[in-house]
């Protein structure tokens, strides 16, 4: 279980903290979504949860990040990497750039951890299997499409077998095809019991895979609850976050005079 306890984080040189007094819990097997306008602190939240802030990113942190009840402050970055894997928006910068094949790219993490070679190989094949990209094993990672590259990046994390996956707008830089590819894969992971924290602007994706959603605005949590409730709330559009298509269609129909009943059933 990943817990953030009243975490505030201020980047070095910044006047105000990027997130203030944020508390949240990610249970084992839970998929938690985070929405909010730009500059709300979603990326900072991901960096703090994964341990990159303040280890790799200089800044001041208040509050605690706990993994299964234990404070993570003393854990070095490579130990955090094995517990909470983080994936970013841009597939190209997550590919190490030194691996000639997708297989080696996914094996990169376990290799860094110094595991036994057989273990590295098993983990890599497992990750390829789970993501359904075994066919890409011999390909050059730099020659893949955006969606495929993002899957390889996620595969590289899965090979570390972290207890939690943290995804910071994983489909932001992808075309619709890539978004669909990654979305389907995340849905499979979620159905398989993975523990995922995902920030996204594409609320359709969150609606599909998240059990709970948290709304972040100006560094603080302003709403939290079951996905359907939070994403259908009226104030979301005012913040600049588009509601899921289903919600927008329902509102449009309601505005045109079509009430509940048969149409709602059809939408569900």
């Amino acid at each position, binding site marked *: 279980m990943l817990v953030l306890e009243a975490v505030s984080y201020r980047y070095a040189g910044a006047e105000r903290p990027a997130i203030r007094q944020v508390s949240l819990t990610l249970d084992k097997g839970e998929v938690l979504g985070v929405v909010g306008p730009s500059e709300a602190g979603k990326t900072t939240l991901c960096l703090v949860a994964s341990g990159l802030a303040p280890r*790799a990113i200089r800044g001041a942190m208040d509050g605690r990040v706990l993994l299964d009840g234990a404070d993570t402050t003393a854990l070095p*970055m*490579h130990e955090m990497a094995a517990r909470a894997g983080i994936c*970013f928006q841009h597939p190209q*910068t997550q590919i190490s750039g030194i691996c000639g094949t997708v297989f080696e790219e996914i094996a*990169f993490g376990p290799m860094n*951890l110094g595991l036994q*070679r057989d273990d*590295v190989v098993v983990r890599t094949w497992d990750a390829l299997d789970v993501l359904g990209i075994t066919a890409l094993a011999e390909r050059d990672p730099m020659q893949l499409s955006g969606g495929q590259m993002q899957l390889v990046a996620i595969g590289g994390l899965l090979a570390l077998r972290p207890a939690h996956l943290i995804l910071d707008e994983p489909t932001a830089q992808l075309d619709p095809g890539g978004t669909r590819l990654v979305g389907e894969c995340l849905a499979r992971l979620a159905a398989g019991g993975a523990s995922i924290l995902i920030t996204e602007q594409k609320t359709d994706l969150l609606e599909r895979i998240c059990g709970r959603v948290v709304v972040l605005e100006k560094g603080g949590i302003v709403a939290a609850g079951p996905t359907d409730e939070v994403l259908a709330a009226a104030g979301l559009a005012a913040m600049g976050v588009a509601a899921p298509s289903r919600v927008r269609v329902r509102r449009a129909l309601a505005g045109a005079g079509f009430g509940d009943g048969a149409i709602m059933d059809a939408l569900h």
Partner: protein
Amino acid sequence: MVGPITLLATAVVLPAAAAGVLRRLLRTSMVLSLPIGISALLVNLFFFPGGSEVLLRLGPVTATREGLELALQVLARILAISGAITLFYLTTRPAELVVDLERRGVSPRLAFVANASVQTVPAMVDRASAIIAAQRARGLDTEGSIAQRARGLVPIVGPVIMGSIAEVEQRTMALEARGFTRPGRRTLLWHPADTGAERVARWLLVLTVPALLVARSAGWLDLLG
């Protein structure tokens, strides 16, 4: 003359032929050596002091036989050196070299830098193409006079470099997120084979150098000319 030519034959030409790269080696080596080879030839041929047997007179300069001998000797040495470098370059795959170095104890960080440097070039070329297209869409002149095109370099080179630098933070975070900062050696999936014969050959090569130095200073090699 005997020395450099023997060296060329045994240490460069024969291994190149065995590796199947002889033609490429001769071509590349010749091209590389051409400028310095020609200047060395001409300088030594025509300006050798104290040469007695005259071969050719061209105005104020004279070509002598001693000059020709020295010129050919220098040329042979140049070819031996450039041939050896070219042979190394043609028969070594960077990825294999780096993996082997890492296996023998080079830090994974250095190995990463070595590998990444090779990969950076194609990535930068791709980025530069995209930037050129973007700037042309904004009116950059890429077909005008040399002066105009030279001025156009700044709006291309600037973004290429800035883009690469801006990426560094993202790349660093991605590497750390995959445990790159763990101290110590990392597991290697494979390494190039190192047979007993290769090891013997390596040691022979290493020992040949001091042996030749000793022979040289003892004067044994002077008999060969």
